[in-house]
């Protein structure tokens, strides 16, 4: 979506605001409604602690996404005894899902272009060697040539 030409006017309207934090939040909301702290936890766990969203960044981005219509406050809440009333749950809208898909396609095109220019070959080669290592070890133990 980012600064790319698009035929969809709705996507073009939000093209400038798709930052890595927005993508992280959309990914976190991809499998269901979550509140702010759950989004923070999901992003931290998914990235193995490499990305930790501080509250200021998180809620500022949520505010922008609400204004742009990428997310809405969810109407349904858990049972009151399981819930904290201060929390607000957020839901990815249809527009948000389309923006996420467009961003995914952009990233796929980016990866394809990098592969075409041989930028990913060394990494992929190393990944293949590392992923084959357990099989190589087990073959050596079994005396397989």
């Amino acid at each position, binding site marked *: 979506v980012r600064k790319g030409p698009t035929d969809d006017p709705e996507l073009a309207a939000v093209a400038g605001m798709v930052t890595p934090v927005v993508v992280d939040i959309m990914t976190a909301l991809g499998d269901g409604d979550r509140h*702010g*702290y759950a989004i*923070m936890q999901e992003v931290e766990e998914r990235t193995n602690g490499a990305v*930790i969203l501080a*509250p*200021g*960044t998180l*809620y500022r981005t949520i505010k922008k996404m609400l204004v742009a219509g990428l997310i809405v406050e969810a109407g349904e809440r858990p049972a009151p005894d399981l819930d904290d009333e*201060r*929390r607000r749950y957020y839901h990815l809208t249809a527009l948000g899902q389309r923006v996420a898909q467009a961003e995914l396609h952009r990233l796929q095109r980016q990866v394809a272009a990098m592969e075409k220019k041989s930028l990913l070959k060394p990494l992929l080669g190393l990944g293949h060697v590392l992923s084959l290592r357990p099989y190589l070890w087990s073959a050596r133990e079994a005396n397989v040539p």
Partner: protein
Amino acid sequence: VKLPPPMPSIVALTLVAYHVLLYFYPRSYRRAYGKEMAANTARHCHTAYRCAGAFGVVRWGVRLFGDTLRTAAGERVESFMQGQGDQPLNTHHNRVQHALVQVRQASLLMGFCCLLLFPATQLLHAALQGNAPIFEALTAAGLVVVILAASGTLVLLLAKHVYGLGKVLLNRTH
């Protein structure tokens, strides 16, 4: 009745400091998200304390401080450009009133920074017996903040008088 375990003092101190830091955000933003942000911070502080002790809380506190200053500055600028939610900037009266509120809040914030920065630099300066040039520079920065806060207040007073005069003149012409 089983009482909850006492909160570690480092966590309590961080949470009090964060509640103060929340005042850097515009009022409308604070009303909308302040409680949730404070609750999330409290949970994260407790988790950091459980995982890494006081060092974890300090590390998270430093991160919070930077994040709050950065995002609050952005929100202030946006609030200034767009106007408050309950008062759209569609008339000159609203625009001038909004600008005055922002100037007043900016000068208050600068005064608050000054209150924090100035004694801290003086203490560090005294602790190192005045040998480190960096603390001389920080003291100078503190003085600059004092001057800016004072000039901000002066601008506010002048603007109020000019605005009051302009309002009277406008009423006369209408």
